[in-house]
């Protein structure tokens, strides 16, 4: 058990945010939509300590020496998908994730990390990917190698999940960028973005991989990086400047922003996918609340002829998490399952035939839940659909 008032508490750097909490409980429900959950962790963990108000209370109790870091805090801090719904609905505009990050880092510094996540990030430090696969195989999905490490103003950052386990996603994003006529590069020595290290509270390890990726991209003269994975994009755009203590030397955009721009400029049009098909779109938390990208995916969908978008009650800023954020699947499968099923039921209730999303973690999660529920709703990556019916000029 740690001593409460020990001097190296990272929590101290966010003490002000902790004390800003009014305890108003606006972080529990989306009551303007009806009796619906806002926070997946609270809905699963059931006691307030699993939700934002509880975590702020815990942080404050630690700062005041009433509570000490111990095993009991591990699930209460780490069983959080970092969906940011609490921060986005906070009455006091508190960046709750800042407090959670400090809690995670303090716990990690005391060796208090959920065991499976700890093992995964240890492997990551060796192989530079979360799946324990050989680094040499990272870009094995790539059929033609001519873009590898080619100096260019634009880069496509693939990310671990598309590179190793959702290779069609990597292929689809690559093909869409290529079809659009963009001159871009792909890193031969791409490392994990660092997001899993941050989720595990390991800031120094995150700094090391971020430094590697930023330097490698800079050496190729890159000015704009296109991401398929919102988690990677956020690690670059929001976390890296803070962790590395310097501004990012290039712009970071999501592939849906890139494609939406092409739609707007009239360079990308679509054939009919299925006439009269009803689709719904799940906002990945990191892309929506985390990066503010809500409109680009919708602009693409709306440009697809013969397609009707049926929104879920919880969408855009109010979107409910798919349950797979922040690597909770390693240690908290119950949270992943419960949240995923709740969200999938909401997808089904729209009457849509197709559920679109644009994040490797969400897609993987929904495909799993789809199988579990034997659902009639088809799950698709939006970029894959673009690739299938897109016509570039």
């Amino acid at each position, binding site marked *: 058990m740690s001593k409460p008032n020990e001097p190296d508490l990272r929590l101290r750097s966010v003490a002000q945010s902790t004390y800003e909490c009014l305890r108003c409980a606006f972080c529990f*429900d989306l009551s303007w939509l009806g009796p619906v959950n806002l926070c997946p962790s609270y809905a699963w963990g059931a*006691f307030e300590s699993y939700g934002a108000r509880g975590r702020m209370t*815990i942080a404050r109790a630690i700062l005041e020496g009433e509570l000490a870091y111990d095993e009991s805090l591990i699930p209460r801090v780490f069983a959080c998908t970092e969906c940011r719904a609490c921060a986005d609905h906070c009455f006091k505009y508190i960046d709750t994730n800042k407090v959670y990050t400090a809690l995670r880092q303090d716990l990690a510094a005391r060796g208090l990390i959920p065991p499976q996540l700890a093992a995964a990030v240890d492997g990551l430090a060796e192989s530079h990917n979360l799946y324990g696969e050989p680094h040499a195989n990272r870009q094995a999905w790539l059929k033609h190698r001519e873009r590898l490490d080619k100096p260019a103003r634009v880069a496509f950052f693939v990310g671990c999940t598309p590179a190793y386990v959702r290779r069609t996603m990597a292929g689809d994003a690559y093909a869409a960028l290529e079809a659009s006529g963009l001159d871009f590069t792909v890193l031969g020595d791409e490392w994990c973005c660092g997001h899993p290290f941050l989720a595990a509270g390991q800031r120094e390890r995150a700094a090391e991989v971020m430094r590697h990726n930023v330097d490698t991209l800079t050496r190729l003269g890159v000015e704009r990086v296109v991401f398929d994975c919102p988690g990677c994009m956020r690690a670059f755009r929001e976390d890296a400047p803070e962790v590395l203590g310097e501004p990012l030397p290039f712009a970071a955009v999501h592939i849906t922003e890139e494609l939406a721009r092409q739609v707007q400029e009239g360079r990308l049009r679509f054939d009919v996918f299925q006439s009269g098909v009803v689709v719904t779109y799940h906002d990945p938390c990191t892309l929506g609340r985390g990066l503010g990208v809500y409109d680009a995916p919708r602009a693409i969908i709306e440009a697809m002829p013969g397609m009707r978008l049926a929104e879920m009650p919880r969408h855009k800023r109010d979107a409910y998490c798919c349950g797979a954020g922040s690597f909770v699947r390693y240690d908290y499968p119950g949270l992943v399952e419960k949240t995923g099923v709740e969200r999938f039921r909401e997808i089904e209730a729209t009457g849509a035939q197709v559920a679109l999303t644009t994040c490797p973690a969400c897609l993987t999660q929904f495909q799993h839940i789809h199988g579990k529920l034997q659902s009639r709703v088809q799950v698709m990556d939006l970029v894959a659909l673009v690739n299938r019916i897109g016509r570039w000029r």
Partner: protein
Amino acid sequence: MAELIERLRSICGPEHVSDALADRMCYRRDCGPTPGGVPGYIVRPESTDEIVALVKLANEVGKPLFLWGRATTFVDAGVKEGCIVLALDLMNRILKIDVENQVVITEPGAIWHAVDSELGKLGLEMTVPGGGGMFSCTVGGTVAFNAVPHGISEYGVTGNHVVALEVVLPDGAVIRTGSWANADAPFPIERGANGPDLAGLFIGACGTLGIITQVALRIRRIPECERFLFYAFDTIDQCVDAVAGIQHQNGATFLIGLFGGPPPTGVGGKAFLQIIIRDHEARAAERMQICRAVCESFAGRPQNSEGTRRYWTEHMYSWLRNTPPDAYYGSRPYYCPEVAGFVPTQALKQAIPLVQQYIANNAEFARVGMRVKGMDVYFSPNAAFLWVDTLYPEMDREAWRVGLRVRAEISELLFGRWMSPGGIVAGIAPYIMPRLGPTYELMKRLKAALDPRNILNPGVLGLGLPADSQLLEQSR
């Protein structure tokens, strides 16, 4: 107490009981300034039957229960060290929307605004929209606290809209009130039936006399239109006189006066009146006319009412001051030792300057960096509900002490003249209950009769304290 936790688990299921310190720390305080005691157990019952079993167990082992809706009150909840917290969040269902009889029945943990949102899908609403905490507060807590709602100028307090309650008494008996008490009546329709108004006994009692397990509230069709006005005045008296004129003619659904704190952005004046009217078109036009005529006859200057509209549609106070919520609430580690209560409308002409003078003469304010957030008034149909909201920097222990002293002194100042608080809970009970004389004695007798073992929310409202204890001493 290994045996007690096993018995709690056998009633509610192991997954709904915790004695982990990390959990217990999270159920000790409301939005008020003092931390409260750390409870011994947190229990999440799922049904009235489970609550009955828990109440019987608490009586048997002599352990107090504390009722936890969402703990969003501002005046110190009064959780007792080592007690069993009954968190009612799992009992959150909307049981029946009875369109025919214009009643909605919910469990106590249903979130107030969530109920309204569901009704809204049918073109209906509760006949009272809840207070500023509506997005997170529970139906049970709001009724037990008798919250002062938005729209109070026309609708009155929350309790007025209760048709009937189901309540578990401190001995475990389950009763229903009003017409619902008749076992042969299929659903609740009228509060004033079958004898005395027993619902009234539990409204505002803050869980000291029984646990509300079902609530029947009145509903109606959403009014046809909403209209907004905003006036600035050069004196408090002009504004108060204008309000009185509007109150006498039932001119507005909601009148909010701003008499202190930061003035609305971009508007000059000493006092400000926000006016909200909800009605059908023709009557709304008439009421607008009444409000305009009265305000202008007291030299009120009409202002852009977009902030008023946003306040009403978003229920965010900041818009009362023409300020977006992020600019108003962001980056402020402040707490609010709120003092609030009903005063006669005309008494505001003395009460506001009195508080202003108290603040101006109090050197502590500047020394510890306190601020005045507002001296705002929600006008009821015939009176004024004044909130004196001061803020102290929460990270500073000395400021916290000053904050509590300010709460005590403003309470003395106002409760000693005109003011009677609405919801009391525990924090301000010491300043008001002793003034109630025989009425407080009656409350104590009722408490002793219904809850002889003192297991429900002891200390809340100054009830259920040991016979020889001095209420004010207890709070110090």
